[in-house]
């Protein structure tokens, strides 16, 4: 594995200034609850504002609604959004992976119809991977699509699907043929673009430990999909889905989930005994992880597939995001904290178990790292 420290593009400072002005205005009334959730916050009106400024799908070609900007410029936008704790959930997944997947594998008509709408902040996507019997062992999934006249028929169930109840489309990984006798279970899987308005789809939100509804159970009962819903090649779904993982795991969203609390803590913990070395360690680690994330953005920009590096960074980043709220709580009795910081930390404590689950569990990521080391 290799992380080269990238050169930041010349216009980055100006772009940051533009974003900060926008976010200062847009975020004037964001409560600690909004900022603690950030990319787990779903706000279509905000996403349309972001889209109107050209900050969604900004690396895509202009003919598909993009801005043809560089991956590092996109990284600047993502970082600024997360550092401010902006509620970016309504466009986050489409910008991060569904859009790039469509750009690579979609039919021309789909790209022309969907990508500009994503870029405007009007279309939300969810990712249909986990199933009741297929979590970390994703290849055990059972949802299947059969060929029927004029298209496909979908049956089965996805679970823990973030924002399915609020989204327009799902990109689902399902089985289209049984795995070959004695062959790899990774064969016979395909990806489908599913319009969530299709009949036969029922979406049941699952209340989480915060008492909120952000993930779902999605049931497909004889759902008819058109021919062109198949994305990419039939049977190549595993390879296609895993090539998205570098996009899914490498970004600043794996590092910055708790950042708003660190910024808040710099003011609130000024007089807490022993604060300087604790906060200094967090800043040092954050600065380093940021460079690693930017390095990955540069690799993706060059067309490389840093899937293993992304796994390593996500593991480090998730541990950091989880350690941060606890480190701050260790400096001052929460009852003595200003209400803003207390509220942020109370939410982050409850959100933080998901950090090392979503997008690949800690154990799966470390397994990938171990394989890269030559173990197993």
């Amino acid at each position, binding site marked *: *594995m290799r*992380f*080269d*420290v990238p050169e*930041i593009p010349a216009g*980055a*400072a100006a772009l*940051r200034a533009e974003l*900060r002005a926008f976010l200062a205005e847009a975020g004037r009334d964001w409560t600690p609850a909004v900022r603690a959730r950030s990319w787990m916050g779903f706000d279509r009106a905000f996403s349309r504002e972001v889209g109107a400024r050209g900050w969604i799908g900004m690396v895509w070609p202009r003919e598909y609604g993009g801005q043809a900007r560089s991956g590092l410029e996109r990284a600047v936008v993502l*970082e600024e959004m997360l*550092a401010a704790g902006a509620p970016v959930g309504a466009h986050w997944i489409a910008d991060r992976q569904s859009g790039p997947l469509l750009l690579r594998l979609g039919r021309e008509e789909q790209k022309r119809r969907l990508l500009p709408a994503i870029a405007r902040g009007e279309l939300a996507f969810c990712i249909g991977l986990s199933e009741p019997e297929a979590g970390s062992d994703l290849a055990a999934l059972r949802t299947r699509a059969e060929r029927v006249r004029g298209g496909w028929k979908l049956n089965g169930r996805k679970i823990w699907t973030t924002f399915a109840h609020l989204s327009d489309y799902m990109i689902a990984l399902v089985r289209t043929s049984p795995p070959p006798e004695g062959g790899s279970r990774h064969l016979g899987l395909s990806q489908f673009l599913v319009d969530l308005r299709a009949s036969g789809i029922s979406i049941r939100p699952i209340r989480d430990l915060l008492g909120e509804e952000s993930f779902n159970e999605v049931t497909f009962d004889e759902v008819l999909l058109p021919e062109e819903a198949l994305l990419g090649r039939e049977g190549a779904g595993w390879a296609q889905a895993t090539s998205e993982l570098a996009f899914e795991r490498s970004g600043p969203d794996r590092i910055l989930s708790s*950042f708003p609390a*660190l*910024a*808040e*803590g*710099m*003011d*609130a*913990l*000024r007089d807490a005994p022993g*604060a*300087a*070395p*604790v*906060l*200094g*360690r967090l*800043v*040092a*680690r*954050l*600065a*380093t*992880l*940021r*460079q*690693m994330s930017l*390095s990955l953005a540069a690799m993706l920009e060059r067309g490389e597939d840093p899937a293993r*590096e992304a796994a*390593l960074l996500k*593991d*480090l980043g998730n541990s950091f995001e989880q350690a941060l709220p606890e480190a701050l709580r260790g400096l001052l009795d929460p009852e003595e904290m200003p209400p803003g910081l207390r509220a942020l930390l109370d939410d982050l404590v409850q959100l933080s178990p998901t950090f090392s689950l979503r997008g690949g569990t800690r*154990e799966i*990521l*470390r*397994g990938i*790292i*171990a394989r*890269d*080391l*030559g*173990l*197993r």
Partner: protein
Amino acid sequence: MREIVLEQMERLLAEEAGVALLRRVEAGEWPAALWARAEELGLPLALVPEEAGGVGLAWADAAAMWQVLGRHAAPLPLGEAMLANALLAAAGLAPASGFVTLGTNAAPFGRHAAAVLRHDRGRLALHLPGSHAPQANIAREPRDRLTPGAMIAEGRLPPAWGGRAARLGLALLRAALISGAAARALALAVEWANTRSQFGRPIGRFQAVQQSLAVAAGEVAAVDVAVATAARALDARGMEGAAFEIACAKVMAGEAAQLVAAHAHQAFAAIGITEEHALHHLTRRMWAWRDEAGSAVTWATEIGREALERGGANLWADLTARDG
């Protein structure tokens, strides 16, 4: 140029270094043959500009050299010599012939030095060796208390170097050495985990061992990036201008030293703590180097104090402003 020098370093250390030499150095011997070959290659002058008779490498190149040195547990004080000569050259002084150590308190390999460079708030003074009281760090590397002899040259660093250039340079050196040593300790542990068999299979097949070494791999990657970032900042902004990045690198190195050493020893179990094993030459140095030129708590305090003073509203802006 960088590739050539790194290749030379790697070849030189592969041929001359090793556990036997490390044992002799820890027993107090000067690695004379290795030092002579390093001098032949001009390595102590790597950071001296070409017009002053050096190789004219950048700090980023030097940091990469120090990582190679760390992989071999640094049996010779080449990093200190490179740093001393860089400081002399910056002050317009001729590079010293022979090994120059830095400082008089816990001077690296001080008993073997041909000269002693003292640095105090931008003022440099080069002395003859004088007398010494032998001391060592926990890796049994010489860290001697020196009473320097006559001054043979003096000068001033340009203001951009700031008042603590030697300490910052040493902090980066120690971080880079730890980065290299940690990478090597991890590689040894992986090799062992694939070889050592228990319960009928290599221990590296057990998820518990895999997860433990994966954690170490994360720290190895992170400290590598922290060192590269600091070296690049140093090339771009000079010594004091890179103080934040160097501080970050030393903090990350301190944490990597602890974690990688712990996970490597855990993989090796009892054999790894035997005197005859290679591992402890790396891990004892990681533990020693993390405390030298400021431990993690020292540098984290500096970073934290500055961030607290600047306040939450500036934290993100200050971090990103250092990208350029």
